[in-house]
């Protein structure tokens, strides 16, 4: 599985560290325990296309948002995390 890093080009996935689903958004500080528990522990875990956070540990050390299909491992988009609107 290869990831097209915007700075470094096409690299093997083993150069990267996987964080997980990029969709969960940290709740505001006053959102309450339930919201925080859901944010920390619950995941959609879809069989299909998802946005994921990958960190290019052995390259440019940027955080990326990778759009990947978990059924086929096909990657359809790679963006710098800081350029992804949240």
């Amino acid at each position, binding site marked *: *599985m290869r990831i097209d890093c915007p700075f470094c080009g096409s690299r093997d996935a083993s150069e990267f560290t*996987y964080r997980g689903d990029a969709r969960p958004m940290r709740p505001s500080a006053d959102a309450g325990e339930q919201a925080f528990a859901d944010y920390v522990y619950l995941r*959609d875990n879809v069989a299909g296309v998802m946005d994921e956070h990958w960190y290019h540990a052995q390259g440019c050390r940027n955080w990326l948002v990778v759009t990947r299909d978990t059924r086929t491992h096909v990657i359809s988009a790679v963006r710098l995390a800081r350029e992804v609107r949240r």
Partner: protein
Amino acid sequence: MMRYSIFSLAANALNGHRRWQATWRDATPASEYDVVIVGGGGHGLATAYYLASVHGINRVAVLEKNWIGGGNAGRNTTIIRSNYGLGGNLPFYEWSMTLWEGLEQALNYNAMVSQRGVLNLCHSDAQRDAYARRGNAMRLHGVDAELLDEQGVRRMAPFLNFDQARFPIKGGLLQRRGGTARHDAVVWGYARGASDRGVDIIQNCEVTGFTRAADGRITGVETTRGHIGAGKIGIAVAGNSSRVAAMAGLRLPIESHVLQAFVSEAIKPVIPGVITFGAGHFYISQSDKGGLVFGGDIDGYNSYAQRGNLPVVEDVCEGGMALMPMIGRARLLRSWGGIMDMTMDGSPIIDVAPVPGLYLNAGWCYGGFKATPASGWCFAHLIATGQPHETAAAYRLDRFAAGRLIDEKGQGAQPNLH
């Protein structure tokens, strides 16, 4: 029920093997049952068996989307053990180990339970201390554990690379009662036992949704073979837990990850038991057919593909070469991947779901095979009585929010680190 014995084997041999009965009934689904189990793997079939045999509940259907045992039950590395470290885990896995020890007699089925020993190698003083601590935790829970020094390991496995400069072998933690079992046979044995007690095993039947009453209570499942009604539905679908739970509007503390495993060509017996490398991701045993059965860590990213990538293959083989260079010339025969339901603390969930009528058995990560008997026992107990079995009382779904995590590796809420 046709009992298997040396006499039935001899009689059938003389009759040209024409009178063997089907091992389980290929049932046609009824319109409703008392209990429906979603998932025809080891855990689902064991649950149905114990519902019938222990609780007398046999108006039960096991629904399997493909063929029984075609998921992780058909893909694992066959290890059984109870050498855990935490109090939330030890009673459960030891109950499972105890059930393994009586399983073949109970099921009248040869599951090839082989208590050949599980040896965890250690490579530093600090690691030995950590293993001693785990061994003591095991013994405090009545589980057998021995701490071997280097000589003790040499006597068991003289072929290991003891004087490797980076990872010298200092000793190991041994559970003699641990070992292996033939994974397919476990599925078939439980299927036969359940079917003989009246449980309907329905293959090629995929659950596509749940039907609910006005008050939200589950009333049945929609499947590819029609609607099936049931007041109690137990989900035991391993890596697909999030997908099935989502049909009931639930999100789980689970990420599905790929774990790869490997089998070599058959060679003469060289590996005496189960051996795990303490300095890298590699563990190995040898099947009775002669193939080396080995694996390492999960790939590390969410996956439902049932295959992984080559860097892990390389990493696992490097571990094998570092530990036991003698296997280097064996050829790799096949490799595969499964779908691991990795939880946020690395430990399983056996609990009622937040939806009335629904029961959840999930989160087995990469360690579900050894849990098969106790998982079935405890899930059946929960479904039949509404109360958790004492050995599984800590496997609650709400433990995450409540801070009562069972985190053997101490890694926190990052599934791919467990």
